């Protein structure tokens, strides 16, 4: 597989602009075999602290499990704006994510980050693509992430549904979170993900949403921090984004913890019938 090493992590803003202007006319059934790499990326501690604060983690040296995803996401975006990438980035829906931390990640460790995309698969609402992100420290794989995105389009109703989320835990809320109207803008400032669907009702409406919605990766990280220190050490977590969390809103965390880990869900406050995200943290 061709590996392209970039001199530094690219800036997110210009990539998203390019993604918007090159959205039309993307086609094909093949995802190019290509890996984008940035060597020895350093962690900006002020940005890390802002991320830790907004996702409910303590300000400390250990990287939260979902943080390398934020660091590497410009590489993923760069991959998707290449002319030969078959799906248009605007409108892609983040369906699920799986992250494994192999060892405690220290902010002082320079991370070699890589992004690559897997084949297209049929889905009942279009086609999905998998994106794999990895982080190495001194040659050792320390962290890996697999994301699944849906490119909405003509779907295949016969697709067998596999690997869906476990049932959301039932019972009373473990926590109630009041998500402010500006959460998307604040997280965008921290993460660099300035996708308009998260920023303002008007920009979100332009893209077919009723209102602006919380970043899925924020929700994921917030749930992980609420589940304790488990995800900071070696562990695997998974998230399924089942419906958007509109802003502002009040949501509830519900979770059950057993000897083999935790299953948690975020649901709208006072509505136990719907679930916005399901997170599994393997112990």
């Amino acid at each position, binding site marked *: 597989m061709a590996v392209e090493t970039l001199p530094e992590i690219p800036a997110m803003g210009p990539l998203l602009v390019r993604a918007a202007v090159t959205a039309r006319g993307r086609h094909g059934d093949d995802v190019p075999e290509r890996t984008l790499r940035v060597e020895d990326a350093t962690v900006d501690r*002020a940005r890390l602290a802002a991320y830790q604060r907004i996702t409910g983690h*303590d300000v400390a040296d250990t990287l939260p499990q979902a943080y390398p995803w934020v660091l590497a996401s410009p590489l993923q975006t760069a991959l998707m704006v290449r002319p030969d990438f078959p799906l248009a980035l605007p409108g892609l829906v983040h369906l699920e994510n799986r992250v494994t931390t192999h060892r405690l990640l220290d902010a002082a460790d320079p991370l070699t980050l890589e992004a690559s995309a897997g084949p297209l698969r049929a889905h009942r609402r279009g086609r999905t693509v998998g994106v794999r992100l990895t982080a190495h420290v001194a040659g050792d794989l320390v962290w890996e992430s697999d994301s699944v995105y849906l490119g909405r389009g003509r779907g295949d109703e016969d697709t067998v549904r596999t690997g869906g989320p476990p049932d959301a835990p039932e019972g009373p809320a473990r926590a109630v979170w009041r998500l402010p109207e500006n959460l998307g803008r604040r997280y965008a400032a921290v993460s660099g993900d300035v996708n308009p669907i998260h920023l303002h009702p008007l920009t979100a409406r332009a893209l077919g949403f009723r209102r602006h919605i919380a970043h899925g990766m924020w929700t994921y990280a917030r749930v992980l921090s609420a589940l304790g220190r488990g995800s900071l050490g070696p562990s695997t977590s998974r998230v399924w984004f089942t419906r958007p969390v509109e802003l502002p809103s009040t949501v509830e965390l519900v979770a059950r913890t057993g000897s083999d880990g935790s299953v948690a869900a975020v649901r709208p406050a006072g509505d136990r019938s719907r679930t916005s995200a399901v997170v599994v943290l393997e112990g």
Partner: protein
Amino acid sequence: MTTTRRAAVLGGNRIPFARQFGPYAEASNQDMLTSALEGLVARYGLAGERLGEVVAGAVIKHSRDFNLTREAVLGSSLSPDTPAYDVQQACGTGLEASILLANKIALGQADSGIAGGVDSASDAPVVVAERLRRKLLRLSRARSTADRAKALAQIRPTDIGIQVPGASEPRTGMTMGQHMAITAERWGITREAQDELALASHHRLATAYEAGFFDDLMTPYLGLTQDQNLRPGTTLDKLASLRTVFGEGEGATMTAGNSTPLSDGAATVLLGSEEWAQAHGLKPLAFFVDGETAAVDHVSGDEGLLMAPAYAVPRMLARQGLTLQDFDLYEIHEAFASTVLSTLAAWESESFCRDRLGLDAPLGSIDRDRLNVTGSSLAAGHPFAATGGRIVATLAKLLAERGSGSRGLVSVCAAGGQGVVAILEAA
């Protein structure tokens, strides 16, 4: 509860101390306390353990942090079934917390626990001017748009402004440094003597770091691996070149070099009964022998703000039947170099010991080679409530190295004219 048992210091952990607005500028008290606690938990294998209690505090605290220590426990790997509470006795907080916990262990009310403290001079609560605060409250009470507009209109540009909490005494309006300058002058403490003490603090702390003394007392935090304020290469000439910041005219002797800087940091100490230690495979470093607090009337000017330890120590010595010279090590918190020197001068003074302490003879002088042997606050920095934990863990380790029965004295002065002192003895 008919008998008491010995409470042992089993170990400690702190994060390196940072200067105000340094690398910990973004960290809250809770972040720092959790990190210090988590490092202790990791070092002593306490993950999932239910301890008797965790007691800590901060001098400068946000109102939202009412349960600071409990929140830090919940953020740590300790069992969430571990209770916790906050105490605050200004710079005596950390030592007072240790004494409280040691007493509970001695009485059998707890088998184990962690004492500590944290302070941030960077992430301080910002308070709006009193006049603005009242107007803002009026604004939030306003129900109708007209009322709101009226309330808003009352806010004048001159109201805007914030008050950052400072180290000034509420009843005198004077800073701690201004108070100390008066005491230093009263005791005739020279600039040279203060600079020499500061120099020794830096050199001894640097030597201790080189020897790896702090390797099992510290967890790196936010990129710092040792105290940021430490100047291993400082000299008497450099210290002598600094301009004075407290005191007036010819009599001014206090500089930024012989005063502690505003700092950020956290420190924790693990205590337990001998049985608990044994059951957990831990070896006691030292036992808590006694503790005493004193307060003086600094408001009337009768006594210096930071002189209370000079009163607390003789009371404790009398109770224990000890003399000031019966110690192998002395840890006297260096709020200012002149605090240490004024305290020592008072104990050497016949008139002070007679008139103020009611003693027949002065307590006498101490062997200065036994004082703050691994440096103290002038070099390490002084995040108010964290200092007690730093000193207790350091002294316990030093005493253990010196061997069974060696004895150490701790003295910490505090705002409000208070002082907290304690005796530790090697296990």
